[in-house]
């Protein structure tokens, strides 16, 4: 996630929410689409094995512009298969490279980048104050045009202290950092840390739509973003688990470590012609 260090402003969020509500109220029911699988990782393999390097790279380092507290590594301790068909990204409380936590941030940059389609992942999230897992897309032209001009599609973000709520957002020029186009979704009578749930966007030239377990909870059209629409070029996928940071606040005494984010699969589909 790339954000500036400005803390999110509740009033701005509220205004954005009202705006989005108004936008959504005029949306029609989503059309049934035919999808063709074009990329996937099911994370099958023996426990402790690192994820397939042909599919995933690692961002190694810290902060990432969000004041995240963890040092992200490519060690199996922080990201490896669990032997039961899942990727486990594990946030640990340990002293490492001057930081007090470690975790991992995996991405498909230069390995798989595409424009439009359905991006989905089936995941069980961690819990506790300060946990910030995310499944998101970033414009592949970021190194040329910078952020937020490259565009960012957050398929799922979550705060460990709000275990029944996730958020879907767009960051682009004029609506980034603390002021994105965003909407949240509350899981009725359940939590995201006690079982697997499917998080997805369906992205086309006309709309981006967000889903949790096939429930659509946000639709955004080009005319509805308060700035330029920067979602007509290739994006890559990022899956990470941050500890602390502007979005979520630091862990506290009751945060239990280690914390694990399990990913059953990540899949990308194209609309059938």
């Amino acid at each position, binding site marked *: 996630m790339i954000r500036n260090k400005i803390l999110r402003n509740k009033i701005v969020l509220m205004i954005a929410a009202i705006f989005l509500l108004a936008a959504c109220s005029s949306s029609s029911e989503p059309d049934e689409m035919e999808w063709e699988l074009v990329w996937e990782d099911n994370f099958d393999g023996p426990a402790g094995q690192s994820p397939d390097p042909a599919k995933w790279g690692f961002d190694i380092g810290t902060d990432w512009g969000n004041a995240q507290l963890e040092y992200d590594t490519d060690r199996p301790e922080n990201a490896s298969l669990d032997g039961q068909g899942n990727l486990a990204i594990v946030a640990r409380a340990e002293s490492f490279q001057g930081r007090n936590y470690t975790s991992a941030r995996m991405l498909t940059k230069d390995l798989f980048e595409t424009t439009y389609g359905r991006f989905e992942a089936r995941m069980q999230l961690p819990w*506790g*104050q300060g946990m910030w897992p995310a499944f998101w897309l970033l414009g592949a032209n970021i190194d040329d045009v910078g952020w937020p001009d490259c565009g960012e599609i957050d398929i799922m973000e979550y705060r460990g*202290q*709000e*275990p*029944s709520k996730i958020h879907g957002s767009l960051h682009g020029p004029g609506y980034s950092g603390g002021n994105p186009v965003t909407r949240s979704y509350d899981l009725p*009578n*359940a939590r995201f840390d006690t079982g697997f749930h499917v998080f997805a966007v369906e992205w086309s030239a006309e709309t981006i739509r967000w889903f949790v377990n096939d429930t659509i909870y946000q639709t955004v059209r080009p005319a509805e973003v308060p700035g330029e629409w920067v979602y007509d070029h290739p994006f890559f996928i990022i899956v990470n688990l941050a500890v602390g940071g502007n979005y979520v606040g630091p862990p506290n005494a*009751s945060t239990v470590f280690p914390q694990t984010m399990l990913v059953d699969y990540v899949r990308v589909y194209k609309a059938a012609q």
Partner: protein
Amino acid sequence: MTVKNLLRLINALLIALVIGFVGCERELDMLEPAAFPTTGDVFIDGFSGGLDYQAFSNTKLDAITIDPDEKFSGESSMRITVPSEGDPSGFFSGGALVAPGGRNLSGYDALTFWARASIGAPLGLVGFGNDNSGASLYPAARTDIVLTTTWQKYVIPIPDAAKLTAEKGMFQFSVGAFEGAGFNVWFDEIQFERLGTIAQPRAIVTSPAITGEVGETISAGVTGVIYDVNGSDVTVLAAPAYFTFGSSDESVATIDAQGNVVGVGVGTAEITVRLGAAIVANNISVNVVPAAPRPTTTAPTPTADPADVISMFSNAYNNVLIDTWDTGWEFSTADVQDILVSGDDVKKYTNLNFVGIEFASQTINASEMTHFHLDIWTPDPTAAAAFKVLLVDFGANNVFDGGDDSSHELTFTSPQLTTENWISLDIPLSNFTGLVNRANLAQLVLSGDLSTVYVDNVYFYEGEVTGGGEPAEAAPTPTVDPADVISLFSNAYTNVTVDTWSAEWDNADVADVQVFGNDTKLYTNMVFAGVEFTSQTVDATAMTHFHMDVWTPDPTALPATFKVKLVDFGADGAFDGGDDVEHELTFDASTNPALATGSWVGIDVPLSDFVGLTTRANMAQMILSSDPGSVYVDNVYFYTGDGNTPTEPTEAAPAPTEAAADVISLFSNAYTNVTVDTWSAEWDDADVADVQVVGDDTKLYTNLVFAGVEFTSQTIDVTGMTHFSMDIWTPSSTAPPASFRLKLVDFGPDGAFDGGDDTEHEITLDETTIPAISSGSWISIDIPLTDFVNLTTREHMAQMIISSELSTIYVDNVYFYNSNMATEPGEAAPTPTLPAADVISLFSNAYTNVTVDTWSAEWDNADVADVQVVGDDTKLYTSMVFAGIEFTSQTIDATAMTHFHMNVWTPDPSALPAVFKVKLVDFGADGAFDGGDDAEHELTFDANSTPALVTGQWITFDIPLADFTGLVTRGHLAQIVIVADPGPNTVYIDNVLLHQ
């Protein structure tokens, strides 16, 4: 340990679980699974079908009420009345809602409810799984939820709902006074729910690293579960039966169903705790060391009556909250482990040099206790060893080192100490001579030469003091001026002749002793003692009070009493001449003053309390009757108080002036009175007598706590009346917290008590109200019936209930009347006649008004409305304490003006202490608030000022601005502040202007 003790509080009989469990299993195996209802409702608008409310033993039995007036939703809530400290009806409120047939709760994950309290206060314990049978398997509860005064929802996760397929305990609570004060708790919408937002259980483990010996049983201390509820941790205490325990190496240690670890062989093992399938603790390490000498029998079971005990640690009693059994103070090397000796919980200290045991968060009041007890066992040599016990009291301020701490350490040695035996230390608290207070005990410190000490049965109790303690200090030296005293016995005064301190006919022995150099009378074997001064009787007519100091080492808990009788031989000066009078007062642990053990009790009472002692010119005897057999007595004297407070009225209450036609009188010589059935109902707590005050019939209440006046046989219709009036006079001190409370009760259309339509309202008067109560003068209480807000019907008035801390009250002229008095002005304020050119008007129909920003600023405490009085615009202030009138946006230049003018009308009482203050504020040259050059001045008006505050008339204030002496500049007038505290609170205002 803390949590463990609390769990004991939930259910003292968890110990019986194993037996109960086996029995249950066998039965269930043979039975078809019963179809238990899955109903989740517990209390919605009433108890869910079939639920019984059962109060816990030793609690206030009538604590629970269905309250239709206060609810979160629906028709009613469940109100819990929490008694204040010392309430005879119970020490705390607690009970269970029980479903006798059982319910299947396995489909739920939480008990939820809404609650609020009348004050912010902790809810001691609330939960479920306790069916009050003493054999509940699955008690679970949250403790010390701090309730607020607003409704909030609370969630109690069910540790493992799969266990609750036939649960009877639907709800349980236990709550005691907060800082001594009682309060109300309201519960609503109590129900089991499946929230889906409860997850991540973690066991509470008090001993994450256990060290024990081969053959020793050690408690793992698994007392509950912490859940994440929607992102926040919630702690639930849970009985062992919810958990499954396992050991990684049973050749080293095993663990039983209660969570008790038994050392099997030397080595280490790990304990795993499961809740259902979930592992909730897997890192409890057990280190088993070779067996050493240790107690093989339990400590002697305590025999003191639980009612006389405050227990810190014992399986024989419910234990109070102990913060820690090892404070871990610097330089302390001690370790503590909870172990079991033949099933009895014991504290095992090792490496003991000294250890702090702290209970500061809820200090112990052992004022009523006589002894401190603990049992110890040591394997160490004791011939040359010492063991020390230190008790620390934090004093009235309840703060460590707050300047009033007291403490004392006692040392025990051989032969009292022996090796490998249970030693019962049973210590009179009076031996802790430096512990001058014991109402706020907060620490126990154990130290000495014994490195390993097993400790059990740590408690305070009230028992017989043998050998008779004696006062650790002399009685307080009296301070009353000798000129105002007639002393029978005191080193501080010259004493009159007393013939005997123990008459022949009495049943007591008396000795002259010295207590720290002070002469004192010591009564022993006392049943009753006759003190006689018949040869020279005492004329106490000029005296107002009787005083004596007493000290006893004996138990003073109820029903023990100490009685003082004074006898006057009457004008004939001789016993039994037909004119003797006497009166006896009784003191016990609940009276004021309260009888107490081991401390000087000052009995200091108005002679008027000796109601039957109607003459005092020939006082000849004092008879003391006592349950305590040993009593020290000192400083026995009569005195006259400050001389300002008479003990009885010297004039009659003021005669009422209302026309008889406008009056319904209950009691007055000025009117014909209606029938009053009783002036002191059987159920009340007061004595009443008919007396005359300067020829005027008056009711005299004595020993008043509350008095019921009933006129139920012929209820009274006061719908045509507007006011209630009565006169009272008291010799008692009206200093706070004393108050006088008056309740009127209407039985409603059915004319019968409690038919569901009764209405009532109580008015409280104190030194700050209108009228204010005060000692030694007649107070006229004159209250609009509309002030009795909740008395919504007045057609069948049937009761008046007086309650007060004022124990003696004269009452006269009790009546309802119709004032025919307007509650609003009947005419407009007088129209000002000044030429407009000389006037700057803020508010008047007679002039053009300048801009006023607000007539009731945000920061004020008043409501204002625009009303018309006979066509004239008027401002009506209500609920006024102070009102801010602001014209800051366009300040007023009043330099050319000479007067401030305003018309005021109030329906409220205008007698003192009612005041009406007017403040004018100028913002100075900078025209801004608080710029350093503001000027202001406040003038106060009352019933005696000019103009005088009066009720029901337009008052014209026309005040020279020069009177506002502090208002040194007037070029930027910006605010008027009106203060009316304590009243009048309803005020009409008109024609607010400045003029020259």
